[in-house]
């Protein structure tokens, strides 16, 4: 099978040559149930998702269950994380309403961060959000909440009126603009909210899997004059990409929480 990735690696294999290099495909995201006879939903991604929740609860409990005026140890770390979310994520969008939504935003940020970081922890190595169901659930939660808050604070008519009719336009132009606003706010915004996180994690996992497989294959199974440099290159690129991936994992968790704060903020106050 000749794939673009094989051509990139400078080799072409005859079709169906056994033991040849096979670039990883989407099948690396499919997992069987954890053990024979386990329920079909109990796979590695769901286990990791639940594990992340447990880790988050334990860490936050340890940090804030018994808070001291002068923080020490875990509480210090927890407060730095909390302040980061409050000052960088929540405040620019929520202003004086920040404190009400901090529990939600802190939970979202750290849960998504843990999900993502699972992608580079040795042996675990699977970013939970690369299964789109997980980001969809979070984004849908925010979506329902934002419509509820919008109707509650701006009224059922006012909310949609403020959303669809920006002031300062001659009336006939609204016929052209209102459908764009409606589609953008009610359908594309939540869609991109979930897909942005999913696609980044999916692509990152594919890249890491590909380069580590290149390194492994050429160093251990096809070691030779051509194989050795390729294997070393693959390994080096894997290390570099892991670094980049850690940065992206953090960035996407930040963006996901930030967009959640932005959507909530838009519902609390009419835009302009």
């Amino acid at each position, binding site marked *: 099978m000749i794939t673009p990735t094989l051509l990139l690696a400078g080799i072409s294999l005859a079709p169906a040559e056994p033991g040849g290099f096979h670039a990883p495909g989407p099948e690396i995201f499919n997992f069987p149930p954890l053990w024979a006879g386990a329920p079909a939903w109990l796979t590695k991604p769901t286990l990791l998702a639940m594990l992340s929740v447990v880790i988050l609860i334990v860490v936050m409990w340890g940090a804030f269950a018994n808070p001291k005026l002068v923080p020490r140890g875990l509480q210090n770390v927890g407060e730095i994380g909390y302040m980061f979310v409050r000052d960088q994520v929540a405040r620019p969008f929520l202003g004086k309403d920040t404190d009400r939504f901090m529990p939600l935003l802190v939970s979202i940020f750290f849960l998504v961060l843990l999900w993502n970081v699972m992608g580079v922890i040795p042996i675990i190595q699977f970013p939970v959000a690369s299964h789109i169901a997980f980001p969809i659930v979070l984004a849908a939660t925010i979506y329902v909440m934002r419509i509820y808050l919008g109707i509650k604070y701006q009224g059922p008519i006012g909310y949609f009126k403020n959303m669809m009719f920006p002031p300062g336009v001659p009336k006939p132009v609204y016929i052209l603009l209102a459908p764009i606003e409606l589609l953008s706010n009610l359908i594309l915004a939540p869609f991109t909210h979930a897909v942005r996180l999913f696609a980044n994690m999916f692509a990152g996992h594919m890249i890491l899997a590909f380069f580590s497989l290149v390194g492994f294959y050429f160093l251990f199974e096809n070691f030779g004059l051509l194989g050795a440099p390729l294997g070393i290159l693959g390994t080096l690129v894997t290390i570099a990409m892991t670094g980049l991936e850690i940065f992206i994992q953090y960035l996407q968790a930040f963006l996901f929480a930030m967009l959640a704060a932005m959507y909530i*903020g838009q519902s609390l106050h009419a835009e302009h």
Partner: protein
Amino acid sequence: MSEQKRTPENDGRDFADAAWSVPAYLMSGILVWGGFGWLLSHWTGVYAFIPIGVVLGVGLAAYLVYLKHGR
């Protein structure tokens, strides 16, 4: 923007709002009016309605971004 106080906080918020809503607006513009153009071309058989709709949609979306964030 006109009625709102121009504090540094609001400026930051407005900037980020603009940055993240632009792609969604452009996509919606293309989908809504490009889709309308596609429907028209489907009914009338004049294919020119599709590109006209897409270009109109992008233009309207850009205008909308200007309305909300550019003034």
